[in-house]
């Protein structure tokens, strides 16, 4: 269920319906809103932004229809059918066009979207969704349970090239009881079940039945029922959407939405200042150093909120794997030693990375779970910067500099390895460079190599051809991390790519996803976090904040921690006298 996304989105919210996927993020240096992290808190929304919002609210303006919002992005979407898309750009746009059955509200609770309500059976095995009546696809055909059924069948169909089928394979039986009732039954209790019914499985049956989904026109000319409907896609330039007047939550105020593709981050920022775009994700440097002019503060509003993402350095714990089962045959002689991993953690100064790379827009990461959610355990082992302790642990593990070349060695082999990370993300490359610098000081020689995103994932992560990687996870709001840590998930292309294997963690992960009792889940996940913090299958680095910016004429924007700002995009508006673009019909 994890997906790899090339770049993070400017907003969480547009991942409506895409509730539960983990996304391996590679934020490209600019667009990323996800870069930033959070430790101090879920409730931390930048003071500045708060003040601005307050000011905004004081000048009470009346919502008006009209105007266009232009969002800048580095990456072009690839395909606008959610289940086929692996990249954030595609999901950003598709999320505005196609809704899911359920979505997260800004207080992180699950609420109905296309589903009006649902019942969960006592044993938790059956969910019955009651769908909204009278919702129409923008081509006029009514949306029904048969569309969901069709989507479900498509996503589990083995020839559909989707990375998201895993959650849906847990379903024992799915049926469309009638036009407005859809029921799924699970084999065993599956805690993330409800949240998985986002927009991945909503497909227009009347347009796709009997056709090859990968060849369908819908990938480039989607039909949905969301707040916006598709108008035009000019390759390499922009995707244009217009408001859906029949949207079931009411016609959006902003008439047009444009997704402009600008591959260069520096250009994008200039476009923002020149009025060519209204909305983009700021890099930490832009947020802290380039946006403090009076002009900027008058015309734009910066936002800052915690996003459910973190960046880590993954160490390959396994040297040789069985091709078919993915089981580890030969452990990595260096990294499989816990003392070595802990030594590396002690050698890295996380605060230095947060200060130097994120300019304080984030916090050091202590583990794999989203801070300030119910499943997050703050009381785990932490690793302060301590090079002496690092050296001592390495010496215990047999690493000493016997030949005086300032590189540790053991059995005649020097401690040298390569960190891979993705190109174009200066935050991540700088992080790797700092790690390289710090590890050199305790006698570990590190090379850094940057790779294009898809090559990185397909050729190196999927095939396990790496020693260490600097990468990010963007997490779903359900704490189930079975796919990342369970020892059965080590086959090629599965997400436990470092081959972590701990029977106790396996058991706890199964327990955590197999019950609906939140106290039981919490206990399991707290324990998992203690184990992970001690064993360090990853060196957890930092949690960045999201730092988007929007032109100040847009009102009604109310970002919520972790959820982001796009969840209420249909309520955003520009007061009549401030409208800039007239839409020519």
């Amino acid at each position, binding site marked *: 269920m994890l997906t790899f996304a090339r770049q993070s989105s400017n907003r969480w919210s547009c991942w409506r319906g895409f509730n539960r996927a983990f996304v391996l993020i590679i934020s490209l240096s600019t667009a990323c809103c996800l870069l930033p992290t959070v430790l101090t808190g879920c409730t931390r929304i930048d003071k500045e932004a708060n003040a601005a919002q307050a000011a905004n609210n004081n000048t009470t303006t009346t919502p008006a229809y009209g105007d266009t919002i232009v969002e800048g992005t580095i990456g072009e979407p690839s395909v606008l059918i959610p289940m086929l898309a692996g990249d954030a750009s595609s999901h950003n746009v598709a999320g505005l066009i196609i809704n899911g059955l359920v979505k997260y509200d800004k207080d992180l609770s699950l609420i109905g979207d296309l589903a009006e309500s649902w019942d969960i059976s006592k044993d938790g095995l059956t969910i019955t969704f009651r769908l909204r009546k009278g919702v129409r696809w923008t081509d006029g055909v009514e949306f029904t349970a048969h569309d969901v059924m069709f989507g479900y069948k498509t996503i589990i169909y083995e020839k559909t090239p989707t990375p998201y089928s895993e959650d849906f394979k847990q379903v024992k039986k799915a049926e469309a009881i009638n036009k407005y009732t859809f029921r799924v039954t699970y084999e065993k209790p599956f805690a993330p079940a409800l949240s998985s019914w986002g927009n991945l499985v909503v497909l227009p049956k009347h347009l796709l039945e009997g056709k090859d989904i990968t060849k369908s026109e819908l990938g480039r000319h989607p039909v949905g029922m969301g707040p916006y409907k598709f108008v035009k896609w000019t390759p390499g330039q922009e995707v244009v959407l217009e408001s859906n007047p029949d949207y079931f939550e009411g016609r959006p105020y902003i008439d047009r939405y444009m997704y402009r593709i600008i591959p260069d981050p520096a250009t994008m920022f200039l476009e923002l200042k020149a009025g060519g775009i209204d909305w983009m994700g700021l890099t930490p*440097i832009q947020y802290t150093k*380039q946006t403090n002019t009076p002009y900027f503060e008058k015309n734009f509003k910066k936002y800052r909120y915690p996003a459910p993402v973190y960046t880590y350095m993954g160490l390959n714990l396994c040297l040789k794997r069985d091709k078919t089962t993915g089981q580890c045959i030969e452990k990595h002689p260096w990294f499989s030693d816990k003392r070595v991993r802990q030594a590396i953690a002690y050698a890295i100064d996380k605060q230095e990375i947060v200060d*130097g790379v994120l300019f304080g827009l984030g916090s050091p990461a202590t583990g794999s779970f989203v801070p300030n959610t119910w499943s997050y355990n703050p009381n785990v082992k932490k690793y302060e910067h301590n090079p002496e302790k690092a050296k001592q642990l390495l010496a215990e593990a047999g690493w000493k500099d016997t030949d005086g070349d300032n590189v540790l060695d053991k059995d005649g082999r020097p401690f040298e390895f390569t960190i891979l990370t993705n190109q174009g993300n200066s935050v991540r*490359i700088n992080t790797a460079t700092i790690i390289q610098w710090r590890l050199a000081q305790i006698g570990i020689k590190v*090379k850094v190599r940057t790779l294009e995103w898809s090559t990185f994932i397909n050729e190196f992560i999927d095939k396990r051809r790496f020693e260490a990687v600097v990468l990010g996870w963007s997490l779903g709001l359900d704490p189930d991390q079975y796919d990342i840590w369970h020892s059965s998930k080590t086959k090629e292309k599965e997400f436990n790519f470092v081959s972590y294997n701990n029977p106790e963690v396996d058991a706890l992960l199964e327990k955590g996803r197999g019950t609906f009792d939140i106290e039981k889940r919490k206990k399991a996940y707290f324990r998992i976090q203690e184990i992970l913090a001690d064993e360090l299958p990853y060196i957890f680095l930092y949690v960045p904040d999201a730092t988007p910016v929007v032109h100040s004429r847009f009102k009604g924007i109310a970002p919520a921690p972790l959820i982001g700002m796009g969840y209420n995009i249909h309520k955003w508006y520009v007061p009549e006298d401030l409208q800039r673009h007239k839409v020519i019909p």
Partner: protein
Amino acid sequence: MGESANSLSVSPFLPLFRSFNYMTQPTLKNLFWHRFKKNRLAVIGGIIVFGLFAVSIFAPFIAPHNPDAINVKHVLESPSFSHLFGTDDLGRDILSRVIYGSRISLSVGFVAVGIATVIGIIFGALSGYYGGWFDTVIMRFVDIMLSIPTFFLILAVIAMLEPGIWNIMIVIGITSWMGVARLVRAEFLSLKEREFVLAARALGASDLRIIFRHILPNAMSPVLVSAVLGIAGAVLVESALSFLGIGVQPPTASWGNILTIGKDNIEIAWWISVFPGLAIFVTVLAYNLLGEGIRDSIDPRLKI
């Protein structure tokens, strides 16, 4: 002209110093220097190139700081006495990085052009000397290589191999030999009928000996000029590749990758992009002025 036989060298750069032996007659040599000195831009170019060599060889002694030393407390600082060129986004000293970056630029320029020149000379010489079907095939191949946009070819090959300084040198080399081959071939076509060649042949010299010991030294001057100009081109290609992130890998400093960092901070930290940009500019300009100066001075037909 008999002297010229001694000046053969396979290295394209040795001729810089040695191939002028064929001008050992004092008048010719003096003429060259006389002309070269008169061209002040060329002299300046030569001095700069010499200076760059000195800088890159003595980088460890000149650089005020460790070029890779990170200091997040001094990020994006403008030029000052402790950091003459300012610092980058990780607090590294730009001056030191520019100094060390000169090593990359120089070595890429020389190795890449060396490879290109050797390939070009071999193909051009054989093609021009033997003519016939061999010539046709080689020249056709040159046409083919010339009809593919070079930078595309370089990108494609780099992507298949691992990025790294050696691969870059080799790839630039094997994609830029065509001009040299054409030049050498043209020289050979006119030289191979000359008396000294006919004489050597009459004396029973082997083809290889004639090609490499008799004709080639006399064909070297245009090659030398194109090599000097080619170095400028290679420096630019390397900086473009590093700029795109597929050149030299971090943390090794190259002018191209310092520029990349500079680009994202252009409005708040001009010094990150201006200094390496200036370094590239001065280097490329110096090589061009030097190359043109040599050409103008070497060409005996040019009136002064």
